[in-house]
């Protein structure tokens, strides 16, 4: 029915989309593991990252690499601010107040962008080298390869960071017990700040990826990817970072397969199918695919 090349093409597309979801889910799982917070504001960082890159590259004509670095830095800074202003004082209180605050931060950022920049979508033009089309067994653009390779590099670095570095080990220690972490001498506030900075910086980068891939950015572009990243965290097993990454790739593949293999009219249901999957996973395996008891 479908040729091998078509099937590989769909798998490739699924991996590209899944990479973006996986990067988002990774940051969400990191923050969740440490604070037990489902950080809805995470999606807003996608929007911030996309607009930041857009203005730096097209309005200020900065070189590509510099624009990327500044975008990541701004994302990290916003993560730092949201933790320092929004969450720090609420820690130790009911988890619900953190959750509501994160929704508030999301709504604030979305509306600030709508007000200050534009309620209209912007067309996002890539630097030409990212749009170059490569035709071989499958067809793709350079940006697709850029997304996949960047994702792999970030995941390896992140894995090493959490596994080997002092702060990474401290993150896992805090995820297990904040009190013990404090009494062995860990500056808990500092480590939590770092986790927000890292997660938000990665999310801002995915904003650029999203814009470059789909050619359009808007003030509310971060909402759906943010929610889907959350679904990825739940499907993969809440609290498990590898689970979140797996969940991200899984959802990316499923969405692309919905469009690529199901009859034409079905593609509008691609988000609905993701949520159906969420319900099924929760019914069969409530802890998620890789979820055990709460640990990173």
């Amino acid at each position: 029915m479908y040729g091998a090349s078509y099937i590989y093409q769909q798998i490739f597309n699924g991996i590209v989309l899944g990479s973006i979801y996986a990067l988002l889910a990774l940051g969400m799982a990191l923050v969740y593991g440490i604070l037990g917070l489902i950080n809805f504001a995470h999606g807003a960082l996608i929007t911030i990252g996309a607009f930041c890159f857009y203005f730096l590259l097209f309005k200020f004509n900065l070189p590509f690499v510099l624009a990327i670095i500044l975008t990541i830095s701004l994302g990290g800074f916003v993560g730092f601010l949201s933790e320092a202003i929004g969450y720090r004082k609420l820690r130790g209180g009911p988890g619900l107040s953190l959750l509501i605050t994160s929704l508030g931060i999301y709504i604030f950022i979305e509306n600030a962008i709508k007000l200050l920049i534009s309620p209209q979508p912007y067309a996002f033009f890539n630097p030409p080298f990212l749009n170059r089309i490569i035709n071989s067994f499958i067809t793709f653009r350079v940006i697709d390869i850029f997304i996949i390779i960047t994702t792999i590099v970030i995941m390896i670095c992140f894995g090493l960071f959490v596994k080997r570095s002092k702060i990474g080990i401290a993150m896992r220690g805090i995820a297990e017990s904040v009190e013990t972490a404090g009494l062995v001498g860990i500056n808990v506030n500092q480590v939590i700040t770092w986790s927000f900075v890292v997660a938000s910086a990665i999310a801002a980068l995915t904003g650029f990826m999203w814009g470059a891939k789909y050619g359009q950015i808007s003030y509310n572009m971060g909402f759906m990817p943010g929610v889907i990243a959350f679904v990825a965290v739940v499907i993969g097993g809440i609290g498990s970072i590898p689970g979140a990454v797996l969940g991200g790739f899984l959802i990316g593949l499923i969405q692309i397969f919905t469009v690529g293999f199901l009859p034409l009219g079905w593609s509008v249901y691609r988000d609905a199918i993701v949520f159906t999957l969420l319900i099924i996973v929760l019914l069969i395996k409530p802890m998620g695919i890789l979820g055990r008891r709460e640990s990173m």
Partner: protein
Amino acid sequence: MLLKIEKIEICYGIIPAVRNLSLEVEEGQIVALVGANGAGKSTTLKALAGVLHPRVGKIFYKDKDITQLSAYRRVPLGIALVPEGRQLFSTLSVKENLRLGAYHSNDKEFKERLKEIYSIFPIIKERENQIAGTLSGGEQQMLSFGRAIISKPKLLLLDEPSLGLAPLIIKEVYKTINTIKMTGITIVLVEQNVKMAMHIANYMYVLEAGELTIQGEPLKLMKDENIKKAYLG
């Protein structure tokens, strides 16, 4: 005087757990806080570690007022706690637990400190890459000691180090405490097992219902009829 507590009162909510407690710890000594369950021993120790803060009174460490200093800031000053029930990071490896104990050191210092810890506790070295939660009770206690000592403390706070361990292991633990003392570390020991504490301590404070009742050198206290009746059976 390494440590001086002046008339502290510590409360859980509005309920005072420790009242009007003053005590002193001289450098190089082992000072034991003993008493029944709920007498306020662990509460006092938590105030020394900075987990709890007294509502009234002051705590001086090396003549510096540390009453309101948070726990993580006390570790670099040289105060380390071996918590009750060990409280290891059970999902982390032995080495990772030690790394967090030496959080204030950089990687190079940590490597050096690690060697020293391994020479004191060879059993921990064998288990280096094992997940802490899978160690035996005695090994976990050793790791908990190691995690505290790797921060180079001058004052080590031990909260019920024999709790939940087999008698043979308890002997091992007390041998270790002696070894630690020999390295020049001052120790404050909280213990329900008064006999064990008497054997090792230079000075003892007996707490009852949150207040200090008796204090003195163990040899003298041992002759006290009241103590004999109440604690030594």
